[in-house]
């Protein structure tokens, strides 16, 4: 039996029934990581730490001790999440040799649940990108077809799950960085409500939009993972919300009768690839046939969301990345003459081109004389988009749209055209601006065999509705196969 192909829940059961030990499983995962090394999904592994954790969990199980919800399950985290004693590079030359002095809350929660962390996933540098081609350590290849990009910025986190290197992974999503790679690689990827998961220890890109989320092979796996990493982090993150964490798994509904699904025409315009459009329409039809009610909703300001997003996220990124100055830690240029030269050379040599582009954009929109015209206006647009979503959710329980207008593109196809690259995010970015939860789940494939992703959006704190709809779809389509 190929244990590595099982879902998280299935492997949990195998571990519980002692069909396999965590140590054996962990070793299998490392073999798989080596066998699929070409995908370049990971920046680093922590084999020793993983094996010692696995052995401890096995021992605990033997002793009949109480075990966490993820006991012995191998997982991977994105390389912008601090884990004490491991390198946290953010796929940047700047942090190539940076070893975390502390552990992020979300990683700690995985450890507290007895999960086995295998390593750190490759990504676009500082989470800026939509193809994972901006990594200082080389691009990640799409496991479905290696000529294609896996999406970004959490390309490594999506790939490692699809390539059976682990059973679930953590990524971060600022404008689509979980959902877009989930769509391109054909896995389940959730960006929770902003504030659901603590950001403490997660290297910030745009603090008001960043959110940690989960990649998995099934919806139910995703729900369990979210349950584990969620919750207020009073001591470390003021933006983590004081909201109860529901038992998403137990609450999963088995039917969707009477559920109202909102469809906004703005998501289905001419730019949409016809195969993607067809696939989404089929899915909507399926929901309707199973008792859901389709409702037209309107999001008139959707077309300006991307502009607002790039202004706000770049402004925050400029400030968040200013601490990388070559003084305290990380990359330091050689042969500098004075402090200004040290800053200049370290940052020039340490950052990649996309990061520099965003830093320049961010400084521009915050600078004196431009602040009102750009930053303040973008924040107003954000408010309007939030209101439009709030009004739409008065009429429906969830909204459904494509995750991305296309399927995965070829490596190198868009690297010379940043604007075309930015357009990969047009359906995902508004969700971050509105601070809503959204998931991408596979809903078909194109003629080339590349996965198509469906995005399910809910109102704040209602991840449960997303899990319900997604689980129903996943289970029904699995049976159909």
């Amino acid at each position: 039996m190929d244990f590595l192909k099982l879902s998280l829940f299935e492997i949990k059961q195998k571990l519980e029934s002692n069909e396999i030990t965590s140590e054996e499983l962990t070793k299998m995962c490392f073999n798989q990581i080596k066998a699929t090394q070409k995908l370049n999904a990971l920046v680093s592994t922590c084999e020793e730490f993983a094996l010692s954790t696995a052995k401890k969990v096995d021992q605990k199980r033997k002793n009949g001790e109480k075990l966490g919800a993820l006991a012995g399950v191998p997982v991977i985290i994105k390389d912008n999440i601090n884990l004490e004693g491991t390198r946290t590079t953010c796929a940047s030359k700047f942090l190539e040799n940076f070893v975390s002095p502390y552990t992020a809350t979300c990683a700690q929660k995985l450890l507290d649940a007895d999960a086995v962390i295998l390593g750190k996933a490759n990504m676009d540098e500082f989470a800026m990108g939509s193809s994972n081609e901006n990594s200082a350590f080389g691009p990640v290849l799409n496991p479905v077809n290696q000529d294609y990009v896996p999406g970004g910025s959490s390309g490594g986190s999506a790939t490692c799950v699809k390539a059976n290197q682990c059973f679930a992974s953590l990524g971060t999503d600022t404008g689509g960085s979980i959902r877009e790679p989930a769509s391109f690689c054909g896995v389940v990827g959730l960006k929770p409500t902003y504030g659901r998961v603590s950001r403490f220890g997660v290297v910030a890109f745009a603090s008001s939009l960043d959110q940690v989320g989960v990649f998995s092979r099934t919806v139910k796996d995703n729900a369990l993972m979210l349950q584990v990493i969620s919750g207020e982090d009073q001591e470390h993150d003021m933006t983590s919300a004081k909201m109860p964490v529901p038992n998403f798994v137990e609450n999963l509904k088995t039917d969707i009768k009477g559920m109202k699904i909102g469809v906004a025409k703005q998501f289905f315009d001419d730019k949409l690839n016809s195969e993607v459009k067809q696939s989404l329409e089929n899915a909507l039809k399926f929901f309707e046939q199973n008792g859901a009610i389709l409702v037209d909703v309107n999001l008139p300001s959707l077309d300006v969301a991307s502009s607002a997003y790039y202004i706000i996220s770049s402004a925050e990124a400029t400030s968040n990345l200013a601490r990388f100055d070559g003084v305290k830690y990380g990359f330091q240029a050689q042969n500098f003459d004075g402090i200004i030269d040290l800053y200049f050379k370290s940052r020039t040599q340490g950052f990649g081109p996309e990061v520099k582009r965003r830093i320049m954009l961010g400084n521009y929109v915050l600078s004196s004389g431009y602040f009102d015209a750009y930053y303040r206006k973008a924040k107003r647009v954000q408010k309007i988009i939030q209101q439009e979503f709030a009004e739409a959710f008065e009429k429906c329980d969830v909204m459904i749209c494509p995750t991305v207008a296309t399927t995965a593109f070829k490596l190198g196809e868009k690297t010379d055209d940043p604007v075309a690259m930015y357009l990969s995010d047009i359906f995902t970015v508004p969700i971050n601006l509105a601070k809503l939860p959204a998931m991408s789940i596979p809903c078909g494939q194109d003629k080339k065999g590349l996965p198509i992703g469906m995005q399910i959006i809910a109102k704040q704190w209602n991840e449960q509705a997303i899990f319900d709809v997604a689980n129903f779809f996943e289970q029904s389509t699995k049976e159909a196969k």
Partner: protein
Amino acid sequence: MYKVVIGLETHCELKTSTKCFCACKNQFGGEPNTQCCPVCVGMPGALPILNKTAVEYAIKAGLAVGCKINEYSVFERKNYFYPDLAKAYQISQLEYPLCVGGGVEIEVDGTKKFIRLDRIHLEEDAAKLVHSKTGPKVDYNRGGVPLIEIVSMPDLSSAEEAVAYLKKLRSTLLYLGVSDCKMQEGSLKCDVNVSVHKEGEPFGTRTEMKNLNSFSAIFRAIKSEAKRQQEELEKGNKIVQETRRWDDVLGKSFSMRTKEDAQDYRYFPDPDIIPIHVRPNYVESISKQLPKMAQERAQIYVNDFGLTEKDAVLLTDDKYISDYFEAILQDFNEPKFVCNWMLGEVFKKLNALEQEDTEILISPQNMAKLLKLYKSETIGQSVARKLLDELWGTDKNPEEVVKEQGLTQMSDTNQLEGIIKAIMDENPKAVQELKSGNNKTMAFFVGQAMKKTAGKANPKLVNEIVQKLIK
């Protein structure tokens, strides 16, 4: 005739037990980099948590100077690169500060004046650059310490007023107990804005001098800058808006940077810190807890102790002095007598020491003992003064010192008569003068008697004996 316009930005470190945005200790001194964590050294991924006590202290300060406390307040990032700024931005406030308005009343040469405040906001301190033989080093212990910036309106019109304003602010903050206000340790610092203009004309261009950390530096810097600007204008030159560095040793300021190369701080709301909502009933509860301030104490000194208003104000100006005065009264309840001693001898001593931060190096208990000896005429005034010097910086018991050194006042009439007779025999001329009605000569005899008795002669008795002998 030129008018001088001055505005002050006063930075005051709050003495909370922990830092503004993390759980590290807020304590002066300490081995370098022993009071820091991923948050205050700006590690990737670390996030700030606002210290509620810092907010409470800032609100206290605001209430004490009559500010309006904003119900909605926002922290912003002030972005600039400097090695002492770990995150390359300082968490501060711009658009929505905690406190706005208010003001303090000052008095210079008997004239009272109200100095309006623009605002008080809360922010974090930067770390400290330490210059060592192997090059510059950064000590992050101070990084992230909470401080309030108190911004005055340009209502001050002389260096004297500026210093009076600062002393009033310092006194208020000390009474509140929210800061140590130790200028030497840098817990109170000032940025000074100065401009000059001719009467009837609009305000002139201002210059700024940063980080002045003593009253005398502030005083001299303002005088010097106002003079420099007047001279420039007299020469027909324009004043350039710029930041200047005050060199206290040379007594001169130097241009640092002009407006053109001024930093663009690119302020924007800090997305890591949720805006704070200060509820009116919270403000009210803080307001009820405010301690008695200088004015209230002075009122008590006048009403209950019978001190003059002037003396009461002098004693309460500095909380330290007032606390010390009240501590003496615990052991020796003679307010008027203690007041005279404090305002006379102790103030003279403190003035001579020229400390920036007042400190009386004798315990109030020992001071009370000393004063008991003095009041009961066990010792005379000159011995009392001598003891003040001798006990300073020690914890010697004055009763024992008097006993050991035999400093008890000489009040034996026969013994004193013998000594005075001898003095008269040696100075017939002085006796003649006294007899002829020159009362000033009396001082000579008292002085001589003191000399012969090592200051122990009871001056009152000496006076009486001399009067008796020349009859």
